[in-house]
């Protein structure tokens, strides 16, 4: 990070130092400052055309203070010393009247392991001209408008660079810089009176040289998926086998499942599992779920968390056995354990708990074998890709519309269905009702990854 935003880095460090000092002078026993600087240029698309070009940069700083077991927090988007002083006083005021909570803590941190990613900056991205960004956007538009049946509703190509900083009064000082190219598209297929559902994708790249090809390939894949949804029909109602593609597995099942690994849910006893369940079998023994913050091509990559604790890859479930929970200092203190580096949030928010990049391991059957198995058991079945609905993480019940889902009968895809609802329970889906896991894995939106699953006892209600 030697020359990367040298002035901005110095300005951020100076402001963060001042804020920490103001917080202690205003009465805090301990204080922590989270800061950030970001610069982004964005080209937006709308209504099949270029819509807007924009450029922004700015700082944000937040201070968390502890007075005994009382906590206060305040933040601003300025490095002006007067404003920093104001928020330091405000944070202390809030701590002054907040009730005590024994689990609030600000801690020292270990050093970041040498294996962790230490460089998320590609100078070629930082120095990218607006002309090159326009060229990349042109590539995306050309690909998106090749098929006239695709209607581009919104899209962006954005280059962002930033610095994240975490310091506290116990000597923690972590800083990380990042450059990232990101792009997204939202649109639908239109042919005569047939309109598909809205579809959306987003991807990232941290390497300038790889970005143009990634933009073209990801846009092409997306448009193909949207256009094929123009062949529509009705689904039948049944209870039985449904194929969940990787996006559906992550959206419907893993997003709700992750709630139960959240240390705060464990500490508050609102999750399904507790410390006594560690090393116990909780789900189907073919399931292994890991959280990996060190994958540099993923959006969730980082070397330290919102409290400055170094991150590390870890298994949450191994062969169906519960191995670990995701902890920040708060939940770690409540459970008498150590933080696992899962404090999440930014300068304008208090630390919460979140996973980094969840990876569900692949199984031992080919995707084709899963389709054959479904077909042997049932003459027709649903393949779910996307989902718009409710998932109650507490009960595990989910119910919603299967978007762009495929209707298969007699061994082949017949059409894509609309107005089809699915419902089930994630614990049963990943437990007794899990029939098969594919060997093939897919990374979704440059972040989490999953194989395809075949699941039984899902209720399908055709419109």
């Amino acid at each position, binding site marked *: 990070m030697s020359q990367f935003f040298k002035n901005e880095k110095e300005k951020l460090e100076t402001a963060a130092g001042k804020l920490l000092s103001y917080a202690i002078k205003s009465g805090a026993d301990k204080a922590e400052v989270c800061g950030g600087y970001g610069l982004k240029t964005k080209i937006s698309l*709308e*209504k099949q*055309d*270029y*819509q807007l*070009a*924009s*450029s*922004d940069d*700015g700082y944000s700083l*937040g201070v968390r203070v502890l007075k005994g077991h009382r906590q*206060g*927090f*305040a933040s*601003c*988007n*300025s490095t002006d010393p007067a404003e920093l002083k104001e*928020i330091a006083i*405000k*944070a202390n005021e*809030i701590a002054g*009247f*907040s*009730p005590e*909570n024994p689990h609030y803590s600000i801690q020292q941190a270990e050093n970041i392991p040498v294996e962790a990613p230490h460089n998320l900056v590609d100078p070629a991205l930082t120095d990218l001209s*607006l*002309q090159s960004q*326009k060229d990349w956007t042109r590539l995306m538009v050309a690909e998106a408008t090749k098929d006239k049946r695709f209607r*581009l*509703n*919104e899209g962006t190509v954005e280059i962002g660079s930033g610095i994240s900083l975490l310091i506290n009064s116990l000597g923690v000082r972590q800083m990380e810089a990042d450059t990232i190219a990101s792009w997204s598209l939202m*649109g*639908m297929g*239109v042919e005569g009176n047939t*309109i598909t*559902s*809205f579809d959306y994708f987003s991807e990232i790249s941290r390497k300038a040289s790889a970005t143009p090809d990634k933009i073209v390939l990801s846009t092409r894949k997306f448009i193909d998926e949207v256009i094929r949804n123009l062949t529509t029909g009705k689904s039948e*109602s049944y*209870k039985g086998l449904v194929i969940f593609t990787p996006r559906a597995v992550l959206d419907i099942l893993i997003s709700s499942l992750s709630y139960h690994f959240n240390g705060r849910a464990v500490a*508050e006893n*609102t999750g399904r599992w507790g410390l006594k369940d560690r090393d116990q079998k909780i789900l189907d023994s073919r399931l292994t779920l890991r959280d990996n913050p060190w994958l540099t091509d993923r959006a969730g990559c980082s070397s330290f968390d919102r409290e400055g604790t170094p991150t590390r890859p870890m298994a949450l479930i191994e062969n169906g056995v519960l191995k670990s929970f995701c902890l920040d200092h708060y939940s770690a203190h409540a459970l008498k354990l150590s933080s696992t580096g899962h404090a999440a949030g930014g300068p*304008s928010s*208090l630390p919460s708990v979140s996973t980094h990049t969840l990876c569900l391991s692949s199984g031992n059957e080919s995707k084709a074998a899963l389709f054959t198995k479904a077909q042997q058991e049932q003459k027709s079945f649903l393949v779910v890709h996307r989902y*718009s*609905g*409710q998932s*109650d993480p*507490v*009960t595990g*019940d989910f*119910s*919603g*519309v299967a978007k762009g889902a495929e209707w298969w009968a007699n061994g082949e895809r017949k059409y894509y269905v609309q*107005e089809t609802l*699915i*419902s089930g329970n994630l614990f049963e889906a990943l437990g007794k009702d899990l029939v098969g896991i594919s060997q093939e894995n897919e990374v979704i939106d440059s972040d989490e990854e999953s194989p395809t699953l075949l699941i039984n006892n899902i*209720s*399908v*209600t055709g*419109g």
Partner: protein
Amino acid sequence: MKPISELLQETLSKSPYWAEARYHRRNSQSVSVQKGLVKQAKSNLTSGVGIRVLVDGAWGFSSTSDLTPQALEKTLKLAIDCARSLSQLKKSKVKKLPATKLATGEFKIPGYDLLKQMPFEQKLQAVLKAEELTRKNSTLITSATCLYNELFEDKIVVTTDGANAASQLARNEIKLGAIAYKDGDMAESHESVGKTGSWDCLFSRNSLNQMSDSAAKLAVDLLSAPKIPGGSTTLILSPAMVGLLSHEAIGHTVEADFVLSGSVAQGKLGTQVASPLVTMCDSGTVPGVAHSGGELLVDDEGVITQKTTIIKNGVLNSYLHNRESAAIFEVEPTGNGRAWLYSDEPLIRMRNTYIEPGNQTLEEIIASTQEGYLVDCPLGGQADATGEFMFGAQKVTKIENGKLTKMYRGATISGQAFEVLSTVDAVSKEFLLDLGSGYCGKGQPAKVDAGGPYVRCQATIGGVQE
């Protein structure tokens, strides 16, 4: 130091092109409590200026948190550079913005000062008490939460064609949650309200104690409720559910930017899209309803908000516009250009979206329903460009032979919005804006409200299949 509106005007006077400068200062505070412990109490201050320009038919935008004349001038220059760069690519140039009566002067929604004067500590104590009341309502309640948010918004919008409006409003919301547990079974419920105004505005319909009570009771009642069977059926939607339908499934499809992209509402102006019993509006202020969650007097393009009748007696009457789309459709802007922060550009967004009341009572509608469900307590939802929607509901009650009978666990309802509205055969006199807490998302959040009367229609319930 010069007043901010003067600074903005001076900056814009240096622009050879149409330009808009928008100052926005937001002070937000929030507190959340769970199981008797304060999970967070925080304050945030954000301020800055966003400048948007129109150069050779293309938009450019830039923003800064630095309010010095030099920084503002640099920001204007950056916005012009961005627009110039884009104009070479843009196929369909933005037309000259329509001449319209732009807002000048001060626009203030009452309640701002009262809310500001009330100490944060007092609000925190109320939240602690509400959570405790919810948790202690029943021995079956194992966990309760209470969340309070407030936003104080100060804005000044200046444009080179005459807008110079200062607006001030405060938005607040409170949300209660309860988890009940019995014999290995769990049920969850939520109760929320969102307003534009003072603390007392939040409790004009139900006191905080009543909200705690209903959240706890619903969670306990849901414990013993069975899962609902799926299928197409007759539904009576509560005002909150009608609000979701109006906002998510119809409102988004008539936002002019979606229309131009090919939403299902494209080309349907003047055609029958719903039952003649349905008249739907989107408005900055709602007659007879003060302090609604989406109340807005002037939008972020300096246009005074107006009541827009989207559907009149079942016929599609108008889309929702910002200044750009109004120019394309050659109509007056409707005051729907809204931005979340100074660093966001204005987009077409709703305000308060609702179906107008009818002439039957809820009691009469239930009595005339042979078989169906009363659906209430929304859990959020989404809709598509096709008008296909999905809404969650916490509370579904069976209607048999004109009487409410058994309660079921939360379900999902779905359908194609215009088709569902075409099946409407009863609309109640009772009317409520009741979207509760939360925000509409469209790249940026926006605080909105929605509601209406009780409405009887046909749609699909997604339940279990045997």
